[in-house]
């Protein structure tokens, strides 16, 4: 099949200081090709200056989140046949400063992530001196939020984040949830205090964009609601 691939271009280093779209006509595209394959083809055979992030190319590293036909997806997971169109538009994710073509500045995103202390905090010595045991039910409680790959698809699909980059964003809340609901962790209260802020969890307006955008199918909005509930009730269960 033939595909018309429209790509957002902005490259101040090469003198393209004005954002614009370039369209590439790609012939013989297989419906099972990924959008990443199309971008690779453009880079290899049409325009070597096209810039985008990619690493594992298998939906694990989270490098290649981009807006594909208006929806945040991973370019390595989105297949041409999934889009039901011969015309495909690829743009950088919203709400973060574009550095070059499809590459955005991820620093504000990772600053928010770091702000919730996304690591295990427990200064006690385990009973057997080796490991902290946990029941199956307690481990399952936060299983969903362990799946996050920090691709930023959720945060950059959030209307609150688009208008206010101080908002901590769904990805940071999901990663806070992963530790808040982990019975082995001892800093839940501290994390909830951080999220109980003007730029914290209560800025979420339950738009559900994050849940729809997540390539790992994490129930993001539910995780955000559970964090809100824990703050309001003072109970983590």
């Amino acid at each position, binding site marked *: 099949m033939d595909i018309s691939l429209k790509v957002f271009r902005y490259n101040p280093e090469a003198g393209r200081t004005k954002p614009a779209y370039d369209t590439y006509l790609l012939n013989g595209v297989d419906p099972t090709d990924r959008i990443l394959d199309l971008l690779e083809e453009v880079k290899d055979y049409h325009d070597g200056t096209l810039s985008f992030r990619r690493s594992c190319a298998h939906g694990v590293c989270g490098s290649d989140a981009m807006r594909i036909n208006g929806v945040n997806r991973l370019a390595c997971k989105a297949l041409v046949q999934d889009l039901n169109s011969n015309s495909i538009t690829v743009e950088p994710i919203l709400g973060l400063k574009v550095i070059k073509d499809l590459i955005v500045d991820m620093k504000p995103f990772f600053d928010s992530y770091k702000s919730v202390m996304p690591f295990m905090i427990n200064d006690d010595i385990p009973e057997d001196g080796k490991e902290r045991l946990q*029941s199956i*039910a307690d481990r*399952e409680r936060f299983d969903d939020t362990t799946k996050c790959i920090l691709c930023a698809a959720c945060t950059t699909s959030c*209307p609150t984040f688009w*208008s*206010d980059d101080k908002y901590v964003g769904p990805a940071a809340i999901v990663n806070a949830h992963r530790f808040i609901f982990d019975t082995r962790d001892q800093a*839940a209260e501290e994390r909830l205090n951080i999220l109980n802020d*003007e730029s914290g969890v209560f800025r979420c307006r339950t738009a559900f964009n994050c849940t729809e955008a997540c390539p790992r199918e994490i129930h993001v909005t539910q995780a955000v609601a559970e964090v809100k509930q824990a703050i309001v009730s*003072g109970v*983590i269960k």
Partner: protein
Amino acid sequence: MTTTVRKIKKQSNFEITSWKWMRYSAVALLPLVWIHVLIKDVIVGVHNIDTFYVRDIWAIWGWKVYDILLLAFTFAHGVNGLRNVSMDFFHSEKARKIVDWGLIVLWVLVSGIGALAIIAGARPEMLV
């Protein structure tokens, strides 16, 4: 299988109060609005409502209280929603404080004037 329940110190600040208010006022609004719609739109009918009807209904203190509550709750719910939306446009702490206080004053003024009008009641004979 049950999970371990842990308790933490209950927190309280303006954001929590505002978030709770949105939920509680919404619950309160359900019966207030639906009873209002049922009576005015279905049972009485909007075309049968005139100043004489308003005079008669506001002669009863229960309906006066009901309408004041309806006005205050609905407007507070809306104003709080507006506050949330305004945060998308006002990013500095100072600007947000000004907007917050402005909206609180607006709520007090509109609810106060509305309450006064309801308490004063309707006098259709003045219109003749």
